[in-house]
């Protein structure tokens, strides 16, 4: 892709002429009031990493308790609070904001826009996050403790909980508002602020994936907000949506929740697809194979994701006809997912490959995400799922998709764009070490959980029968290894911000896209004059 830029298009462009430059508040006020997409993107990324550490500490407490049979470290009721908060924080506090951070930073750069469409709303959508996170974390210290019904929040268990549950509900409302605002911003930016010549079908895949994701978010977050509000009114205002005694149905909650929940899992992974597509192409020095079919596959996944929700509910006792329908629909969604994997493989085929850290994480992503896809396929088979549902097999499945999937793609993206963000190259050696440690410890933690699930160990239990001991011990050791390895990432990122080899505008020779035409670090204002894409 080529862009002609006028002399003040970037680099020197912001040196003068624009009155607001250089007059922004300094210190804390700068961050509180900023409407700059790069500042906001940076804050999203830091926030998400902080939440990742908080959620990670909870995970390590869970794994410590599960190191041995018996109750040693935490009480069962606290254990349930930990699993619940871990899930909510990782999904809504770590993974989703991480990709919104990428979107903020990269979408304007990629499509040649000078900023996001709605700067103030952008600021607001970030600053909603910290209070929501605070509500979740502080709920651990209120009477009765935090919500302890699992991140899926099934009633009637949620009706029994203390005020921690209400705090979680409000946190979800706020997080939902934040994601919806972020999405409106992204959609408007992509649809209206593309540079002349940047047609939709020329748009980099990362921006494409976010366009689909943003629509998914707008479609389903209100559903989640609605269903938790129904829980709230059942708890306090005498409604009986989910109580059979009052004419309601507890399973109704599950239908509504998963109507949100399945698209949600794609919200988590689709931007990762975009990152990986671009990284694979850059380090294969070859254009993405089947760009058009990639776009169609993403759109197809987005649409189909609304039609499969009850595959999470095979054991609730729905009629056989519904079970069969959801099974067939779920199998169908595996086809576009498969297409993406074939396309990535074909992109690498006969390329000129090199294996810098982003590429390692991208290949690690494809490898492990495919395993997660296969276990998803096994779970989709309703007859087999009866054995697996609510066991550790499901835990293994979704960690292969969410950690080895979404998180690994976020790392791939972070290493890929760090030079653009900071103006320095990160330490390549340490980056590779980070990858290999993550890869090994990830598998050590989660691969064995497949065996636990198949052998019948239920999920969300603080104590287990003796035959599950060995695999749990391996898993716990792996988890600590994985957790500690992430501190290495923190070190790499900070040293890259502080210094290191100067990064050229385009540090990766195979990379394509407008973002590589602005200097590194990307100046505070870019594309003040729109580039023209030929």
């Amino acid at each position, binding site marked *: 892709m080529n862009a002609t830029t006028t002399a003040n298009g970037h680099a020197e462009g912001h040196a003068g002429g624009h009155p607001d430059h250089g007059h922004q508040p300094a210190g804390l006020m700068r961050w509180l009031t900023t409407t700059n997409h790069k500042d906001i993107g940076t804050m999203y990324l830091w926030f998400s990493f902080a939440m990742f550490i908080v959620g990670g500490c909870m995970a390590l407490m869970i794994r410590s308790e599960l190191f041995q049979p018996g109750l040693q470290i935490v009480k069962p009721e606290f254990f349930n609070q930990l699993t619940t908060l871990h899930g909510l924080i990782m999904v809504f506090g770590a993974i989703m904001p991480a990709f919104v951070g990428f979107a903020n930073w990269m979408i304007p750069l990629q499509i040649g826009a000078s900023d996001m469409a709605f700067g103030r709303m952008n600021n607001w959508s970030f600053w909603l996050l910290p209070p929501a996170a605070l509500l979740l974390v502080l709920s651990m210290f209120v009477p009765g403790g935090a919500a302890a019904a699992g991140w899926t929040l099934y009633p009637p268990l949620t009706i029994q909980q203390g005020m921690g549950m209400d705090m979680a509900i409000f946190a979800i409302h706020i997080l939902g508002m934040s994601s919806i605002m972020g999405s409106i911003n992204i959609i408007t930016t992509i649809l209206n602020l593309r540079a002349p010549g940047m047609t939709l079908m020329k748009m980099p895949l990362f921006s494409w994936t976010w366009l689909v994701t943003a629509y998914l978010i707008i479609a389903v977050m209100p559903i989640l907000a609605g269903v938790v509000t129904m829980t709230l009114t059942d708890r306090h205002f005498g409604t009986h949506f989910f109580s059979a005694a009052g004419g309601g149905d507890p399973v109704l909650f599950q239908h509504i929740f998963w109507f949100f929940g399945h698209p949600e899992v794609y919200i988590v992974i689709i931007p990762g697809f975009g990152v990986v597509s671009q990284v694979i192409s850059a380090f294969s020095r070859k254009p993405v194979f089947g760009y058009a079919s990639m776009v169609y596959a993403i759109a197809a996944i987005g649409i189909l994701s609304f039609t499969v929700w009850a595959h999470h509910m095979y054991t609730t006792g729905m009629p056989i006809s519904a079970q069969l329908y959801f099974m067939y629909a779920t199998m169908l969604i595996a086809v576009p997912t498969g297409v993406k994997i074939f396309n990535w493989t074909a992109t690498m085929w006969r390329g000129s490959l090199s294996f810098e850290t982003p590429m390692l994480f991208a290949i690690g992503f494809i490898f492990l995400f495919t395993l997660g896809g296969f276990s998803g396929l*096994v779970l989709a088979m309703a007859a087999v799922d009866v054995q697996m549902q609510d066991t550790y097999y499901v835990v293994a499945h979704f960690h292969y998709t969410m950690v080895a999937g979404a998180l690994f793609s976020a790392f791939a993206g972070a290493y890929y764009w760090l030079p653009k963000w900071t103006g320095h190259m990160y330490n390549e050696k340490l980056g590779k070490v980070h990858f290999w440690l993550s890869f090994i410890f990830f598998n050590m933690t989660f691969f064995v959980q497949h065996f636990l699930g198949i052998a019948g160990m239920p999920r969300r239990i603080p104590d287990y029968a003796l035959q599950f001991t060995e695999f749990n011990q391996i898993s716990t050791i792996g988890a600590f290894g994985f957790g500690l390895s992430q501190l290495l990432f923190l070190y790499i990122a900070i040293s890259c911000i502080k210094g290191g080899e100067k990064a050229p505008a385009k540090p990766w020779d195979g990379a394509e896209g407008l973002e590589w035409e602005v200097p590194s670090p990307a100046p505070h204002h870019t594309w003040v004059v729109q580039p023209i894409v030929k």
Partner: protein
Amino acid sequence: MALATLAEVAWADYQLNFQEPATKLAREVYDLHMMMMYICGAIFVGVFGVMFYSVFKHRKSSGRTAATFHENTTVEMVWTVIPTLILIAMVWPVTKTLIAMRDASSADITIKATGYQWKWGYDYIKGEGEGIKFMSVLSTPRDQIEGRAPKGEHYLLETDNNVVVPVGKKIRILTTAEDVIHAWFVPAFAVKQDAVPGFIRDTSFRAEREGIYRGQCAELCGKDHGFMPIVVEVVSAEKYAVWVAGQKKKLAAAAEDPQKVWTLGELKQRGETVYAQNCAACHQPTGKGLPPAFPAIDGSKIATGPKEAHLNIVLNGKTGTSMQAFDKQLSDTDIAAVITYERNAWGNHAGDMVQPADVKAARQ
């Protein structure tokens, strides 16, 4: 402690696949899973064979320049259609097994399994053994859980009363729950069915081999979700008949004279057992509860105040909290005993008694 842990590690035999199936359908599920493993394994090797060939052969460091192709409609069609066909081939046998699994008709024996926080109640409602009912509670001692005693072989997978069924007979299980959602899960039968409060669902199995099969609740149901196992004993027809006769005798013996007047000592003694089995999980053996989730009984307003309020909360529970209604779970005598116990244990000295007849009257 360390030694005990080591010993446990040495015993436990780890396992890579499903538990040995004990029903025809569980075997089918086992085979389906193996089929999936082979197919997915083959695809995996195929795709990553190609990718790793690329990784090793198409390296920049070995001086390769990249090809420029980026599209091929035929190839893309092929790899869309072939996976679709493979999926259709996989889904066919699964459909057959699923339909068979969901057929719970023409059962020989029907048992209702009711989930409570945190135990299972069983009612034999049809077939041989009709009328038998009992509660089934984890029997692993607290000391083992808290590490004060070495763990037994069936740690956490043992109950005081096992479900007993005859071999080769089709057993239909109706599931429901009293408080929150639970799930009745026995891996060796490939049976898992949510127990939803206010609704009745069903599932079934026909065990082919005698033996003891162990499972656990499989839906998060609160604090002691990990501590409500399911143990099914599959026995021969003769043994089953003997068990049924024994249970019937027990039930008859348990049906006390409702008019009998008990002494305070008798009630307290019986109440202590009832309390330990039904209330201690939440209100704790010490009566101190786990506030604020579970209030203390020791010194509580209700347990030291008028009897009527105390009877009311135990019989009817309190909606919106985990305090469940015990009217259907416990007999008049048991309720009388446990209330009397609560009013006169620890620091409570109400000094009064609740007689079974009072409970009977309060039920109306």
